[in-house]
């Protein structure tokens, strides 16, 4: 049975804003709405997308989706609680501007920037690259004109993003585990240099 999808609570059909879709299942349309009597259904706004029901099977949100959300929330909360009970958040000595820890590191999610600063002139690493990445991200949907969502059709986009993702993760891992005094490379740091106290 063919059925009209759209206006069903925000599940807009692919690629169209749902505001433009119409739900006009034939039995619910009063005969008056079919235009001037006798002129037939030509004047009725045609449904924009007609799909088979089997392709777009829906379920009631409550409880099907709500239950999953509840489980997901419960799961991550339990996990965080466990971590919080057994692992304490770090707290070092009281702040002292006279003693510079070595290395002084930015929070982990900014270590990529710190890594870049290590390798490129500040104007590049601190300004040009971040501006490029942020503008690039914001503009992504407007630059990517490829209408397909299938990975096979989006090789360039997928490759570029994967490159970015791998670099971003690699920089963080390097910054956290392999950068030692004065932010120099140190293979042994990850093992904790037995016998040496790294904390200031």
């Amino acid at each position, binding site marked *: 049975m063919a059925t009209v999808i759209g206006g069903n609570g925000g599940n807009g059909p692919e690629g169209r804003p749902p505001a433009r879709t119409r739900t006009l299942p034939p039995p619910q349309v009063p005969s008056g709405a079919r235009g001037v009597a006798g002129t037939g259904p030509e004047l009725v706004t045609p449904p924009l997308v007609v799909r088979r029901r089997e392709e777009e099977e829906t379920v009631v949100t409550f409880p099907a989706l709500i239950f*999953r959300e509840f489980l997901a929330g419960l799961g991550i909360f339990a996990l965080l609680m466990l971590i919080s009970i057994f692992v304490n958040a770090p707290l070092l000595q009281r702040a002292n501007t006279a003693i510079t820890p070595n290395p*002084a590191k930015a929070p982990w999610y900014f270590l990529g920037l710190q890594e870049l600063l290590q390798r490129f002139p500040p104007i590049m690493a601190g300004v040009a690259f971040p501006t490029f990445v942020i503008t690039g991200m914001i503009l992504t949907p407007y630059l990517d004109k490829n209408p397909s969502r299938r990975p096979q059709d989006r090789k360039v986009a997928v490759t570029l993003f994967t490159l970015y993702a791998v670099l971003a993760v690699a920089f963080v891992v390097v910054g956290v585990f392999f950068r030692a005094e004065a932010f120099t490379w140190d293979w042994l740091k990850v093992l904790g240099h037995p016998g040496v106290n790294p904390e200031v």
Partner: protein
Amino acid sequence: MSATETPTNPLVRMMGQVWGSIFRHGLPTSDKVAARTALTNFFLHIHPVRVKKSAIRVSYTLCLGGLSFFLFIVLTISGLFLMFYYIPSVDQAYQNIKDLQFVATFGLVIRNLHRWAAHAMVITVWLHMARVFYQGAYKPPREFNWTIGTLLLLTTLLLSFSGYLLPWDQLAVWAITVGTNMAKYAPIAGPYTRYIMLGGRNVGQGALIRFYVLHVIALPLIGFLLMVVHFWRVRKDGFTGGL
């Protein structure tokens, strides 16, 4: 719930009325009741009444957007508790954190929870962005929601960064010193930007109160507003659904 069996005891009848006035539709015994519940409940109304089966498969969203939002709520509530003890003064902040760890009941767990949930949120938001990218879910008509998402990612990072300073220990002050030093490199505006961020030339009381206000009021409000718009648009555009 059927209205036929009216209890005779007036107290029970009144309790039934109270219950019925709050929960209008009883348990979701049929799709119809379930749909009516979702339609009339404020909190459930954020969802459409029906969703595509393909869109709520865990393998599709990996729950990452929802989990990011959940973590935001966990952070808001645990942060509220921390605020009862924390005073944003360079003379007191560090001691307040020590008290939270060793004196206040459950203070340690709440502080840990706040810290780990904050790290987790940076990760889930980033992964959510990655899943949206790989599924091409930013394509029309959802281009602008991706842009809002980008702003949400930045807000999440800034929230975490501003919170980093508050314990006022060596880790905090030096991480912020390194972080804000990066701002210095922008041509012309750089040094001024850093001065404005820190309220001075060094990380001191001026910086602490700025970061505190940003962390507990400005950024959460901005984040919340962006989320409201983000969710509204997800709701209006629908999930992209299976590939």
